[in-house]
């Protein structure tokens, strides 16, 4: 069979800085008609540049210097721009990562789709309207005839991505390039969009080039996988072969660095170092410096392709002539088995943080005098407890109020009601000077390492800020095993070493660091004041898998050595499985289920928890996995549905669910949920409306 798209030796340069960056360096791949081909790689590996090269939409600094991109024997790189315009959207379409940014906010959805149709087809007014309606119905937008005349701001994130897909499908393309199509979406929405893409592909027999960093998405979607590293492809394989026995050390180490339940008691394998600078000429294997199986030859000769089977190709010296099979679990070998978490002898360790019935309502104001017309109930009666040295994970989709809880515990947002007790201190309504004395006990780590460090301050100033503000005396607290830090500078050096950075970095500015390094600095900043509780607000979600593993290892070792308690706010179930002791699932400002990690994740009770867990793309197919369909989007917290908030999306909704919020149901001393499917306890009816 002839490939639909054939890329040969593509080389794309980016002329930024002093030396040109070889963003794509000799890339060759074939995509067959109707198949889903996944391009997998970390950020900076050249995935997106490949896609933009195919579309010939490179930024101004980009230049394709060599290679061929053929679609049905037409070389796209030879076409004049006018002809290329007939190909974009017609034969190849593209959908982008951020649906919020890829739709024009001042045009209606219909107008934007019409643009594509007018460019490629000669249709009458009537036909265009019908076609737009068909397209929107095809991507599952309800009430398409009306909604097509709405503006993008009236669509939710998932709906926008559906509209984007509809627009991409408008030209009936043979190839759809999807650049991280679901990265910006929540898991339940991601599951819907992936399902939609699968259906459309089967129906239209269209090829998809799926660009992603998420192994789970690859496992669910792709038929063939290519792993990209530092501008070139290092492994191509059919999906099953790839997931059964990845051959390239990079792929193996990627798998090993994924967090998960079975790795709870060990530290994750990390890929040392960072992606090498692409501005250089490589004389050996690009991965050699980070590879745990590197040999002398790896640094001397560029590896050639080696076929394991006809379809499974690897670029690695390990598979040289003797066809030495790499040890399947090579990656697991060097992992030092972390001692089983020394369980405190007391069964009930001291409660560190007790949150009771916490409420954070944001007023909606209107008019000249800013009259309050309603409230966004971001957090609506949440109770949770964290024991010293333990980890509570708070799980939920974006917009459910997770971050608000974190900030209101720290009193960065004033709670509307409820109480937050830290040890014996009530934090709500504590006056500012008193609160300040307590601040060193609890700290926060933020999601985005790029905006959490002041770009105009040196690392030393950043680290000193908290110490100075809270008057932390470095000599007083020195963890056992450390040499007693006498001066502030030594303390800072010790902090940086503890988070795995050399002490010299304190003289630099944040922009000189990569995302993972910045997150380490942010952790060091929080540790500088010797907190007992760290609130981690999605600390790894902006990071690559290999970097995420480093940060998770760091957090875990910190907990072990310093006895820190974590409130871990995340949407990543795998991270929860790896790190958390207890888990609380949140939906629209309320906790719907909570319990110990094994109770909740292996036996979820609430339909939302079940749906959430089943929406997470899995690498290993679970035979007993029940697919719980979840439809629709998260409702606005300004006007939550009456009764159980989840009932409009719940497959088991009953009449009573629409009337009142379900009281608590207990399954064990620790495992509770709020759902009418289970017998209720009668004493608690605080949520009744």
């Amino acid at each position: 069979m002839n490939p639909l798209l054939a890329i040969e030796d593509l080389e794309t340069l980016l002329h930024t800085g002093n030396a040109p960056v070889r963003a794509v360096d000799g890339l060759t791949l074939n995509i067959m008609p109707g198949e889903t081909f996944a391009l997998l790689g970390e950020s900076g590996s050249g995935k997106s540049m490949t896609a933009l090269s195919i579309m010939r939409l490179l930024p101004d600094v980009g230049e394709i210097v060599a290679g061929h991109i053929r679609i049905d024997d037409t070389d796209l790189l030879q076409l004049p721009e006018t002809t290329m315009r007939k190909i974009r959207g017609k034969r190849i379409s593209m959908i982008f990562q951020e649906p919020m940014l890829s739709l024009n906010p001042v045009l209606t959805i219909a107008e934007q789709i019409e643009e594509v149709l007018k460019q490629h087809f000669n249709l009458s007014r009537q036909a265009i309207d019908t076609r737009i309606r068909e397209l929107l119905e095809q991507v599952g937008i309800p009430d398409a005839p009306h909604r097509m005349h709405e503006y993008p701001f009236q669509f939710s994130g998932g709906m926008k991505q559906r509209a984007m897909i509809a627009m991409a499908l408008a030209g009936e393309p043979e190839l759809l390039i999807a650049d991280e199509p679901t990265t910006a979406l929540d898991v339940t929405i991601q599951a819907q969009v992936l399902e939609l893409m699968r259906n459309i592909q089967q129906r239209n027999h269209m090829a998809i080039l799926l660009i992603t960093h998420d192994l789970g998405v690859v496992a669910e979607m792709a038929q063939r996988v290519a792993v990209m590293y530092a501008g070139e492809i290092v492994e191509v394989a059919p999906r099953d072969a790839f997931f059964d026995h990845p051959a390239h050390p990079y792929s193996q180490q990627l798998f090993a660095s994924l967090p998960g339940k079975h790795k709870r008691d060990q530290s994750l394998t990390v890929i040392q170092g960072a992606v090498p600078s692409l501005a250089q000429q490589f004389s050996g294997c690009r991965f050699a410096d980070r590879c745990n199986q590197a040999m002398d030859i790896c640094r001397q000769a560029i590896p050639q392709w080696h076929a394991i089977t006809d379809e499974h190709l690897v670029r690695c010296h390990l598979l040289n002539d003797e066809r030495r099979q790499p040890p399947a679990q090579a990656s697991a070998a060097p992992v030092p088995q972390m001692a089983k978490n020394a369980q405190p002898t007391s069964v009930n360790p001291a409660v560190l943080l007790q949150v009771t019935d916490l409420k954070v309502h944001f007023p909606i104001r209107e008019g000249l005098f800013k009259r309050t017309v309603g409230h966004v109930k971001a957090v609506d009666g949440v109770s949770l407890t964290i024991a010293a040295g333990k980890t509570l994970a708070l799980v939920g989709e974006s917009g459910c109020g997770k971050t608000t809880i974190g900030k209101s515990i720290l009193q960065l947002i004033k709670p509307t009601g409820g109480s937050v007790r830290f040890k014996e201190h009530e934090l709500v309504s504590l006056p500012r000077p008193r609160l300040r004395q307590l601040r060193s006990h609890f700290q926060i780590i933020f999601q985005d390492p790029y905006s959490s460090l002041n770009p105009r301050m040196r690392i030393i100033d950043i680290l000193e800020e908290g110490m100075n503000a809270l008057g932390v005396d470095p000599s007083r607290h020195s963890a056992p095993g450390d040499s007693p830090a006498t001066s502030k500078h030594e303390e800072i050096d010790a902090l940086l070493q503890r988070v795995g950075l050399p002490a010299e970095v304190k003289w630099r500015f944040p922009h000189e660091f990569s995302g993972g390094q910045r997150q380490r600095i942010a952790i060091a900043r929080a540790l500088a004041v010797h907190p007992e509780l760290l609130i981690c607000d999605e600390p790894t979600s902006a990071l690559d898998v290999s970097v995420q593993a480093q940060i998770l290892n760091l957090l875990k070792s910190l907990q072990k050595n310093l006895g820190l308690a974590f409130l871990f706010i995340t949407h990543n179930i795998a991270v929860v499985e790896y790190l958390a002791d207890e888990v609380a699932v949140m939906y629209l400002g309320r906790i719907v289920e909570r319990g110990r990690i094994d109770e909740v994740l292996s036996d979820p009770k609430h339909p939302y928890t079940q749906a959430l867990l089943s929406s997470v793309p899995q690498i290993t197919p679970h035979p007993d996995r029940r697919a719980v369909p979840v439809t629709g989007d998260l409702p606005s917290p300004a006007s939550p549905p009456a009764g159980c908030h989840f009932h409009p999306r719940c497959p088991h909704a009953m009449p009573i669910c629409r009337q009142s919020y379900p009281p608590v149901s207990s399954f064990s001393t620790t495992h509770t949920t709020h759902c009418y499917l289970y017998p209720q306890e009668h004493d608690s009816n605080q949520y009744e409306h």
Partner: protein
Amino acid sequence: MPFSPILLWTDALIYLLVVFVLCFIWYVRRHAHMLTPWKRVGHSTSGMSALTILLFFLLIGLLDTVHFRPALEHKNDEGNAVYSVEVLSLLDVLVEPLRTQVEKTYSAPLATHLYAKETLELPGGRQVRTFARLQHGGAHLQDPEAEYNDDIAWRSAQGLLLGFVIWSVLTAAIIAGLARFHPKRIPQSISAIWHRSTEIPWHAILITLFILSMLIGWSAMLASHYHVLGTDKVGQDILYQSLKSIRVALVIGTLTTLIMLPFALLLGIAAGYFRGWLDDVIQYVYTTLNSIPSVLLIAAAVLMMQVYIETHPELFETVASRADLRLLFLCIILGITSWTSLCRLLRGEAMKLRELEYIQAAHAFGVSHWRIISRHILPNVMHLVLIATVMDFSGLVLAEAVLSYVGVGVDPTMISFGTMINAARLEMAREPMVWWALLAAFGFMFTLVLSANLFADAVQHALDPRTRTFTRKITTPPNPAEKTAILSNPATAAPAAAPIFPEPPQR
């Protein structure tokens, strides 16, 4: 004493500003991490050229700031010196001939005759209507028609030679200085400048200096016997007026900004950072202020001031101090009316910044509001302030011209670009046209504002820690002495290269 020093209000403020700047420089020099970004300003070719020109303007402005009253020849009854009522500056003394050689009326640049015909009485008693000879411009020529071209050419050549000599001396001084501060020999310094491999673009500075000194030498040689830029209606030398205007422009540009900045910074950041009722109040204030036509406000205030000055003549010893107080007051009024746009800009930026996570982290440390504003918000809005003030600088110099046109600008006795333009404006319509006054004002203003803009651009670029300004040419032989100075840290290159395209945070 042959003179009595005079300290005008604006003089005092300018001295204060100079002291402040010197203190700042001293402070920065002692802190390596603050010095590094400022050193990077030196990497910008255009910035350093602009700075050279700007320094020249500043020098003229400062010379014009040192005021005194010369002693008159006669003494009073008690034998004490009597001082002139006329206040002079150092600049006036330096360019004495320009100030004193006054013609009758208009004359074109480098002319020997007046621009208008007038009736002259010949020695025979006959009256003739012709272009009269100038009293000073080309007065040394016996026969202007025959000697004029040769004289101009000869003096030009002399002037250019003088300029070249000045430039050579400066260049020699710079090269000697370079050789002294860096352990290098003089030929190496010269070759480094020639190959443009120095850290500071000395080649650009030298080229700028060359042009400047050529111009200065040329005009200095000609100005003693001609009016290089012509004369105005009352016969004053335009070059002299232009030089005098520089100080007024600098005063209006800098003092007004200084008066405006506290309002804009304090109110703008407070509104954006604290939000709530404070934000509402500040917003209402600047919206109200903005909706009053500022010319009206300024006119009213200046007229009130004028009445006050005229009813209290005993407060002012000299005309210059009157004019100076009016200038200061104009700066204050302009400052009070022009802070709104910067304030609005800063409010928006502060609103954006306060939600950023590093500010949240600072809150979590219990850092006080004042420290958050001064350490986190202020440094991150400084680029806006810098751009806005430089943009305002040119706007203010122009505003002064407009206000002088309306009649509420600087004192009519004070020479400024505004009064020059205002006087020249009427003559544009006349035939033949008097173009040189306007052109001179335009040329000087343009150069001043452009170099200020370019320099501010370079500063803003360099102060952003994310940019690297100095790209070393690969062809030049590496020099270990310089290397440490160029990249603040040799290891910076490695981690900076890591993410080429940082992907947006994934939610």
